[in-house]
């Protein structure tokens, strides 16, 4: 039942707004709203009951194993929530004077420094509000770099075929043409093909490493050489940074610019699809173009003072991408996470994420599933392909994913990357226990049996959720996007 269907005219959560209507007679009639918005009119209890019960219709990290590949669904420490909701942090106005911001600014400055360290980069701007905005900022900086050198012929961005959809979409938003680079059957980029694609038109390449194939791109140094040799720059999509956190720094691989998904690698909550944060980090060459604002430090280490750096300090900046400084509350959570992990914990993230993925890959292979890259080490995630099951039993990757829900397990990412047919991209993350993974492996083995003996049942899954499979075609054809009284 929708909240609107519980609405009754005149009902109100009385304690939550001024009791009396204000005197608006000072305002001319022309400005005044004539018809009330049809917002629900419910009691406080009704609102709480409704939304509490809605929440119970979700799977989440806090309630289920959620190995959604490429999304890094790791534990979101509650301590980070507690810190981010301290009144002095939660209620700070974004334009509060620096005299009333030193506590906040010191956290942001330290976060910048830590992110520089783990990425091996020279400068960081925290402002992008999501990974995709970080990508935008990064490619916009590449554009600004070439423009500043009057290198106007660089109109192309290269993107491996396995890339996240945001990569080509971002390149287009930044005014570039996109050229796809093929990927070999072992998951690595086809370097020979790459060489034929580069030239004076090459502005840069956008890559993820480990790639979305769940393997580490072994020729990364050669690729960097190829791109740099023709005058292009390398963009690192930080979506998979969790795989190598503490083990390899993108700056050391030759990347010039990157973004991080703090809601992945730094464990800030995914929130049902945002908000996240997508800071950008750059090497020397792109420092002048970082988006604003950035936090600067002045004074001695004993008595530091912090201030905003703006376009007055960074005149060649690509500019500001939001009204203020971005998703500060998410950045605070990421800062807290980094502080609680510390140096040692940071080194272990990539190690245990990798251990978990390789363990699951091996066990699923033993259980009869086919790995997409059986000869490669898994990184923090890996891919199985259900082509055989699709062919043999008519049970495809989506059917198995839906059936997992009946086992109280969230499905992995399905049908991505596009180049692997009928695939599951599985990412357990380092915070999951062996038992949780064993339960998943057992469920997959059980579903495989079900597929053999009762394929129809599997195809009809799920059966235990608030709804059965939904009619997506109807949703798109008969668009119903808003409730009407």
């Amino acid at each position, binding site marked *: 039942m*929708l909240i*609107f269907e519980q609405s009754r005219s005149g009902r*109100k*959560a009385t304690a*939550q*707004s*001024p009791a009396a*209507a204000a005197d*608006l007679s000072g305002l001319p009639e022309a400005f005044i709203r*004539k018809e*009330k*918005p049809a*917002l*629900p009119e419910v009691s406080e209890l009704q609102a709480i009951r409704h939304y509490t019960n*809605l*929440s119970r219709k979700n799977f989440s990290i*806090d309630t289920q194993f959620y190995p*959604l590949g490429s*999304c890094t669904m790791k534990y*979101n420490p509650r*301590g980070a929530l507690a810190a981010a909701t301290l*009144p*002095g*942090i*939660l209620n*700070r*106005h974004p334009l509060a004077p620096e*005299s*009333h911001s030193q*506590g906040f600014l010191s956290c942001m400055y330290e976060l910048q420094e*830590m992110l520089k360290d783990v990425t091996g980069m020279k400068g960081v701007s925290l402002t992008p*509000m*999501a990974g995709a905005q970080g990508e935008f900022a990064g490619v*916009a900086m590449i554009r600004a770099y070439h423009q500043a050198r009057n290198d106007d012929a660089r109109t192309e961005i290269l993107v491996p075929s396995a890339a996240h959809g945001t990569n080509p979409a971002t390149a287009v938003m930044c005014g570039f043409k996109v050229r796809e680079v093929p990927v070999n059957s072992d998951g690595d980029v086809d370097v020979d093909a790459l060489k034929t694609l580069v030239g004076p038109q090459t502005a840069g390449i956008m890559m993820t490493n480990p790639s979305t194939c769940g393997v580490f791109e072994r020729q990364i140094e050669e690729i960097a050489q190829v791109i740099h040799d023709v005058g292009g720059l390398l963009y690192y999509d930080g979506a998979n940074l969790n795989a*190598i956190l503490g083990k*390899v720094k993108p700056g050391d691989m030759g990347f010039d610019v990157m973004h991080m998904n703090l809601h992945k690698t730094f464990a800030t909550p995914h*929130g*049902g*699809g945002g*908000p996240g944060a997508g800071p950008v980090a750059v090497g020397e060459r792109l420092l002048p173009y970082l988006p604003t604002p950035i936090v600067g430090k002045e004074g001695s280490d004993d008595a530091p003072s912090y201030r905003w750096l703006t376009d007055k300090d960074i005149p060649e900046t690509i500019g500001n*991408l939001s*009204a*203020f400084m971005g998703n*500060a509350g998410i950045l605070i959570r990421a800062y807290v996470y980094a*502080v609680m992990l510390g140096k*040692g914990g940071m080194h*272990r993230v990539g190690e245990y994420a*990798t251990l978990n993925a*390789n363990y699951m890959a091996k066990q699923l292979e033993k259980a009869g599933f086919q790995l997409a890259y059986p000869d490669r080490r898994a990184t923090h995630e890996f891919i199985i392909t259900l082509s055989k099951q699709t062919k043999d039993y008519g049970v495809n990757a989506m059917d198995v*994913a839906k059936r997992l829900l009946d086992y109280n397990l*969230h*499905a992995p990412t399905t049908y991505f990357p596009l180049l692997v047919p009928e695939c599951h991209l599985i990412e357990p993350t380092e915070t999951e226990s062996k038992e949780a993974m064993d339960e998943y492996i057992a469920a997959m083995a059980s579903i495989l049996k079900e597929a053999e003996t009762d394929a129809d049942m599997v195809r*009809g899954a799920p059966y235990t*959720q608030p709804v059965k499979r*939904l*009619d*997506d075609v109807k*949703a798109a054809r008969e668009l*119903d*996007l808003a409730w009407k009284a």
Partner: protein
Amino acid sequence: MPFIPHTEQDVQEMLETIGVSSIEDLFDEIPPQLRAGELTQVPEALSEMDMMRRMRERAAQDDGALCFIGAGAYEHHIPAAVWDVATRGEFMTAYTPYQAEASQGTLQLIYEYQSMMATLMAMDVSNASLYDGASGLAEAVLMAVRANRKSKSRKILVPGTVHPSYRSALEAIVEAQNIEIVEVEWDQQSGTTLLDALGPFTGEDITGMVIAQPNFFGQLEDVNALTDWAHAQKALVIGLVNPMAMAVLEAPGNWGEKGADIAVGDGQPLGVPMASGGPYYGFMCCTSAIVRQMPGRLIGRTVDLDGKPGYALTLQAREQHIRRSKATSNICTNQGLAVTASTIYMSMQGPDGLANTAGACYQNTQALVEKLTSIEGVEKAFSGHNFHEVALTLPAKASAVLEKLAEREVLGGFDLGLSYSSLENTVLVCVTETKTDSDLEVYKLALADVLTELNG
């Protein structure tokens, strides 16, 4: 090992299963020269207890002043229930509802959000939200360019009364899209956009026009006349509004003869804390006619195999994960949790509660204006009407006054001189429903005191 559950025995069993002897072996495909050394800028781990103590100390440093700054972020009362429910693990730690059957909570909530936002804006449809108001404005401009196929100019009129940071974010985001952003001059007397200023553009091919209500100065624009003018030029109208104000001010869908085509703005006033600037969310509504050009997620109501109502992501064919380089935008999330809070907030306010809250903001602002203008030399900068922000001209430089007020724990407003060179003696002051009479009195006394100090 913070947050890592592995026991030594777990690790051994897992390594055996994999068939390697150490975790290190799992990294054998990585060229050894790429392996990172020790981190130097990440200190040793703090326990949660030590971390909280540090954060409490830092938070306390910034806390305690009376805040009269608005300028795009607004201090409102947020019912305790809102975030209590929004931070339930099932909302907070879920991801994008790709598995619709296991995400009906988030999906239905967003459908309700879309419904609330559409009715609040008096528009047909809403998306599931964008990053924030400023980037949302940029997306609205890109959308207008896509949607207004008859216009070839890719020219967007943007009044100078639009938030300066929104304008610069807009420039930064659409920069590579071959779009011409044209600033419309504002009237120094009224602090609004006059039809006169649009004269030069009449009859031109204009793709779209942004109209802010209230505008950056808190002043009310003649939205009806501006909308009708823009439509007469076959431009699409993008209403940029404060959603809280729309409880009492006419909503974009009802502006002029035909109503705005797109409504956009920052949802922060609806239950989202100021939190140093984010996470907020950008809302975006539009007419049905152009919904397929809308960026961002959309949730639709449909039915399941049994014919039971359910909710799902829809029109995904517009999005980057399907369309890749041909997507309407590179955006691949919404601001789910902020929207969750806003939806609960709106359900607890209802139409009357929201109107009373907005009305109290208006009333308190007028009360402060009365108090402050009783001080010699303090005057309203503009004629006309305002909502809950007001530009006040001072008998001293705004920057100096604000600094002295801050020393007295009053954050007195935004220095308009930072964005408008003609206004360096003018502050933009905001008063919401959170301020009491005695707060207003505190401001007045502090200001009088500061002005005496500065001007002798």
